[in-house]
């Protein structure tokens, strides 16, 4: 190599030597150049919060438009961009990075590792995201507008008939894919390779287990997403005809590949949530988790099944009968392992000694509301019935129940649960509970009526609707604003917790068990540089 590079390498190594094993670097470089899993975790979490607010504001625009029939605020063309961006940002910008952030913070501390296995790669995974999303958001200001074809971007609406900005969208998706794959590799390697002696697999905390399985899902499906957007790119710019019947292709091929990614993707957004809830419930029930090993097996079965159910999103595209039946049965099967999980949580609470701090409130609400979302999922899985449900607000109700009081609630539960460990301070418990109750009420007012308008026949992705859907839509909109503004309490609480001194104990929660509670609060910059003793 040239001498220039060599010097650079040396200077890089020098800084390493000089700083090794002190606290964080001073100033802004701490965040840009860090390799510390806690810093990276925090950045992921802040990024996710910003994205949640962005996507949430888009949701509020949608709800404002849908408050009444008629067009009030948004042009239909712009409404579609809002729907699309809201879905994309929430899925790829809010939920996934939040889980990666939690993984970064907690996995090394939970298994007793000094850091993530590949620290530089870890920082790269994070820093790709802000760039990817700035490209994504920039498309909104380009000629012809941003992506307007739904977060599922079905061809040919997203190829031949798309606005020019779709090209940027494709590259943004590529970048997010790289970030997720690198992140997932890091998680897997950390869990498989960084355990201290004695930390056998069947002793791993469930959050770690669920993340391990999630990471496998990521590695197996993100490249498929990259593949399908690449085919779109080729169809748009290089004259291929993958999704065009005139050349022998098939638009439905797009949907098969997309959902081969897409269905596992929705489990990517729920398995870590299962893990968080499985940590929190035993703590506040002061009782060991019921059925640890069946939890592990159930999670693995869900992950496995998630690969063979994708076409339940496509029951109405005209799949041959045998395919339709296969996908219906496989989808219904998922209720079994998921049920096992729900039953285990309930059995953990049964005969426990429960208290109801904010994380526990969110966790209990998770169990109930996620199950409701699961039940509507099961109804959707019944193929003949799905001919009536498909592409209506019933589906919107289903997935918001599993995503908002599902994934989002679990993230909030996790943040409240671990916040004292991260910051060394207790958050304001009263405000936390208020935040919970407002969110709980808000969420149900927003999304429960969507079941009704959906069954009554309101299609999704419309900026305007017939008069008979008006009442429930107005209710939904009111709920959405209630829920949205309640989140200000959360942000306020977190910020106060970081700044105010209200010293937390090391254990934090009376019933907490696990390695992460054995280190001081706040957790020192480097933990477990020597492997801990595990018994």
């Amino acid at each position, binding site marked *: *190599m040239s001498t220039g*590079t060599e010097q650079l390498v040396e200077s*890089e*190594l020098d*800084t390493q030597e000089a*700083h090794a094993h002190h606290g964080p670097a001073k100033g802004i470089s701490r965040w*840009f*150049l860090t*390799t510390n899993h806690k810093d990276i975790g925090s950045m992921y979490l802040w990024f996710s919060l910003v994205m949640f607010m962005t996507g949430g504001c888009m949701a509020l625009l949608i709800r404002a438009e849908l408050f009444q029939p008629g067009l009030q605020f948004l042009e239909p063309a712009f409404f579609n961009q809002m729907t699309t961006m809201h879905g994309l940002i929430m899925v790829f910008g809010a939920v996934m990075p939040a889980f990666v952030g939690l993984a970064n913070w907690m996995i090394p501390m939970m298994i007793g590792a*000094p*850091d993530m*296995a*590949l*620290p*530089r790669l870890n*920082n*790269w995974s994070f*820093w*790709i995201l802000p*760039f*990817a999303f*700035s*490209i994504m958001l920039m498309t909104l200001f380009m000629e012809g507008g941003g992506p307007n074809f739904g977060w599922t971007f079905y061809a040919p609406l997203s190829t031949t008939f798309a606005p020019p900005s779709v*090209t940027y969208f494709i590259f*943004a998706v*590529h*970048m997010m894919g790289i970030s997720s*794959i690198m992140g*997932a*590799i890091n998680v897997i*390697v950390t869990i498989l*390779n*960084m355990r201290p002696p004695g930390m056998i697999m069947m002793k791993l905390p469930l959050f770690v287990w669920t993340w391990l399985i999630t990471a496998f899902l990521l*590695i197996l*499906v993100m*490249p*498929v997403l990259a*593949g399908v957007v*690449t*085919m779109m790119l*080729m169809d748009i*710019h*290089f004259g*291929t*005809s*993958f999704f*065009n*019947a*005139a*050349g*022998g*292709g*098939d638009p439905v*091929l797009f949907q*098969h*590949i997309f959902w081969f990614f897409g269905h596992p993707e929705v489990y990517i957004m729920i398995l870590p949530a299962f893990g968080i809830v499985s940590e929190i419930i035993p703590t506040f029930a002061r009782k060991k988790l019921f059925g640890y090993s069946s939890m592990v097996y159930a999670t693995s079965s869900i992950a496995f099944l998630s690969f063979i159910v994708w076409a339940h999103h496509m029951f109405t595209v005209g799949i*041959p009968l045998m395919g339709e039946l296969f996908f219906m049965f496989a989808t219904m099967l998922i209720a079994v392992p998921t049920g096992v999980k729900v039953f285990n949580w309930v059995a953990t609470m049964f005969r426990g000694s429960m208290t109801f701090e904010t994380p526990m409130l969110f966790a209990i609400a998770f169990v109930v509301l996620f199950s409701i979302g699961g039940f509507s999922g099961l109804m959707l899985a019944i193929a003949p019935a799905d001919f009536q449900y498909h592409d209506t607000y019933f589906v919107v109700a289903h997935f918001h129940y599993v995503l908002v009081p599902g994934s989002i609630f679990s993230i909030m539960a996790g943040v409240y649960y671990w916040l004292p460990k991260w910051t060394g301070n207790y958050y304001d418990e009263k405000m936390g509970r208020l935040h919970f109750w407002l969110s709980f009420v808000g969420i149900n007012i927003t999304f429960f009526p969507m079941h009704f308008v959906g069954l009554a026949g309101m299609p999704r992705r419309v900026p305007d609707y017939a008069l008979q859907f008006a009442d429930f839509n107005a209710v939904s909109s009111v709920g959405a604003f209630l829920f949205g503004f309640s989140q200000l309490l959360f942000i306020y609480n977190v910020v106060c917790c970081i700044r105010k001194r209200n010293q937390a104990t090391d254990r934090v929660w009376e019933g907490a068990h696990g390695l992460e509670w054995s280190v001081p609060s706040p957790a020192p910059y*480097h933990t477990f*540089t*020597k492997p801990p003793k595990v018994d």
Partner: protein
Amino acid sequence: MQTEYQEYYVPHQSYYPIVASVALFCLAFGAGSIMTAAENGGDFGMILLFVGFLLLFFIIISWFSTVAAESRLGLYSPQMDKSFRWGMGWFISSEVMFFAAFFGALFYIRVLAVPWLAGEGEKGVSHLLWEGFVNQWPLMTTPDPSLFKGPEQIVDPWHIPLLNTILLISSSLTLTFSHKALKLNNRTATSLWLALTVVLGATFLYYQVIEYHEAYTELGLTLASGVYGSTFFILTGFHGLHVTIGTIMLLCILVRVLEGEFSGDKHFGFEAVAWYWHFVDVVWVGLFIFVYIL
């Protein structure tokens, strides 16, 4: 534990990741503006793309040099070595899935879509829209030849593709010999076999370029010649890209061997490249069977 624990090396700070992210941004934005350019975006895009490549190139070189240097300094424990192995392994798995998407598309189109369009199978009514279209593979006539003119001829698997198969398989063998030699600390043999591998890889690429040139100029087989051309080029094209990357990586390894790096028992960089190369080779065998022969 039997051996004493060696601390896991965690670098304190690094500017590589953030610069690499900037590089990706430049690449994505540059490529985006070139592709959507009406009149003026092109130059700007070109500059961005160029900057992106430059940055990425620079980062890759210095990142890997740092890793090698750290390894030389003995900062890496055996546990770290294992981390690299797992990491590379799962990275290759993700690459497998990337190709799986394209293979999946190929199978779907051959087995379902084209027969349906030609009136066969459960969705054969679709034929009403494409009268006269017949099911065949390779697809020489598309459903709508006015939009997508089918290829006139296809690549004969028993000429260049067969040669290329032989080239790649032997390159896998030579690479294995090189690895064996390295393990025995026979450095001359290592570099000779490795050099041969690079030559084989480069020859493969040379023939692929010839094949593409023929396809475009003589056979009428292009990206735009219907879905046969689409699947053909996307599969062979991305494979070719991987061979290119693999060859460059082999070349870097060769340089490092010549500079006296790697020892008989510690040479993960070498092995990682070897894994990658074998993976590329296996994909080719799939291509040869499903794209060229069948």
